């Protein structure tokens, strides 16, 4: 069982000023799974991702990735270890072309030559449907293309674990389907996916296991159906309407 773990956080806590954003959160992520994290605004989902990524330093707790303690490493080292983050609000290198955006990520670990990096980035661009715009400046892309670029750039660093922070925010039904397709493809390549998402229809279709956060602590975890139907989650977050929705869809 422990051999199958890719990421383990032990008692992560983080406060901003007087507010506890995350309180004693321990998460186990298995190799090759798609795991979802849900919770209302301010429940600590994004903070968890930023702690894993090394953007914030935890006040206490440990982050163990493939048996190695990553706590306190700067985020570029975390990325080179094999974790990548797609931000909720895209942060493109707007003065670089789409292709160059990916190349930065692909080359920064120093594992690939320029040529193999270019080939790899082209595959990623095709996978994410950005190949047509690869020579455009990232600053000139449409909002939806930017969301894809964010995922594509995270993929370009060849992660073993990818953290997707609300990738479906602002997307229409059709785009969500394409996104789900992309997530499935990523996962089928053996990449573990952690997904923070607000939209329930995306979560239920994409993930196998769910973690529900509220006010910085884990309130429920387990298989999707179980968590969604659990009393505490429906009370805190989903409300009756969503419970009916889940009940109807299953």
């Amino acid at each position, binding site marked *: 069982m422990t051999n199958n773990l890719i990421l383990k956080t032990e008692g992560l806590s983080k406060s901003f000023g007087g507010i506890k954003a995350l309180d004693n959160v321990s998460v186990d992520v298995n190799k090759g799974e798609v795991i979802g994290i849900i919770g209302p605004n301010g429940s600590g989902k994004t903070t968890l991702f930023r702690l894993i*990524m090394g*953007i914030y330093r935890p006040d206490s707790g440990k982050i163990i990735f493939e048996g190695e303690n990553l706590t306190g490493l*700067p*985020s*570029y080292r975390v*990325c*080179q270890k094999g974790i*990548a*983050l797609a*931000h909720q609000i895209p*942060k*493109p*290198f*707007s*003065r*670089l072309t789409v292709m*160059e*955006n990916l*190349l*930065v*990520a692909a*080359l*920064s*670990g120093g594992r690939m030559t*320029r040529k193999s990096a270019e080939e790899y980035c082209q595959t990623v661009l095709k996978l994410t449907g950005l190949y047509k715009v690869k020579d455009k400046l990232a600053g000139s892309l449409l909002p939806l293309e930017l969301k894809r670029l964010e995922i594509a*750039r*995270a993929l*370009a*660093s060849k992660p073993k674990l990818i953290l997707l922070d609300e990738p479906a925010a602002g997307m229409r039904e059709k785009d969500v389907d394409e996104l789900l397709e992309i997530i499935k493809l990523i996962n089928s390549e053996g990449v573990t996916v952690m997904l923070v998402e607000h939209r329930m229809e995306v979560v239920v279709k994409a993930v196998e296991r769910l973690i529900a956060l509220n006010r910085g602590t884990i309130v429920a975890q387990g298989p999707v159906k179980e968590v969604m139907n659990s009393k505490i989650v429906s009370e805190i977050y989903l409300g009756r309407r969503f419970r009916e929705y889940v009940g109807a869809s299953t």
Partner: protein
Amino acid sequence: MDKKNRYIIGSSIVAIALLTLAPYFIPLYWMAFLFFCFIYLVLTEMWVLVAGFTGMVLLGIGGFVGIGAYSFVIFSTCLNWPLWPSLILSGIIGVIIALAVSSTIFRMRGAYFAMSTLVIANALFAWFSTWSYTGGGAGIVVNVKLPIAIVYHIALILAFASIIIVTFVVRSNLGLMLKAIGSDEDAALTVGVNTYTCKLYCFLIASFMISLAGAIYFLYPGFVTPDAAFSPIWLINTLTAASVGGWTNIGGAIIGVIFIITLQQFFYVNYPGLSMLINGIIIVVIFLISPRGLWPAIRSLIEKRLKRF
């Protein structure tokens, strides 16, 4: 594209050949003119690399000019070492200073980084204003007798090298990382760019080249004072050249530099301060009408016109 490249390479070979032979057929005034251009070309190309591409606003550029100049004076005149080791060492001293301050200044970003480089430049200025070994505020004579044509050629080589270096760096993997850092440093960190090391490389290259330029510049007047070596004029002139030539435009820097030196020489005879006043106005005006620089704006305007016909 290929054709354009060949055209650029061909014309630069002709230009370099002409510039190399120039001392044998142009008057002294024009040689001095070109010499100033070469020195400022080094500074402007480095500014394009450090500030334009990477986003590090190196307000303390004059500090490296001054440290290069003073290191050279100390080695060549005070210690009486030969020319070439003294020159190279003055560049290396610039690099050592840069390394020494890097861990402090790279912790800061944006305006704080920019201001701390200015504090360093002024601390160096204050030090050399008081240090009696190099004559304090009164300055010191550079005791190196070189034919003016040799000084000219050294500056030409350095200017040419700086264009090559910046072109090479910008096209390399490092250049890609630097551009990413200049675009969004936080995002660069999360996609795995070791921003500290990348910025350090860029900073060290610039400090070496700028210090060398400072050392070579003072071969021409043959006299170094703290006021001249650490003058804010270095910064203002470089900023003007970069504003005219374009912030991320390696070729445009040449146009910017020719522009500022022409302006400086034109007003020098009557009133030296006037060219700096005009420089200030130019920086402000260009910044308000075309923040990426004047030359790129003009070029895209011309290209648009040409397309219409």
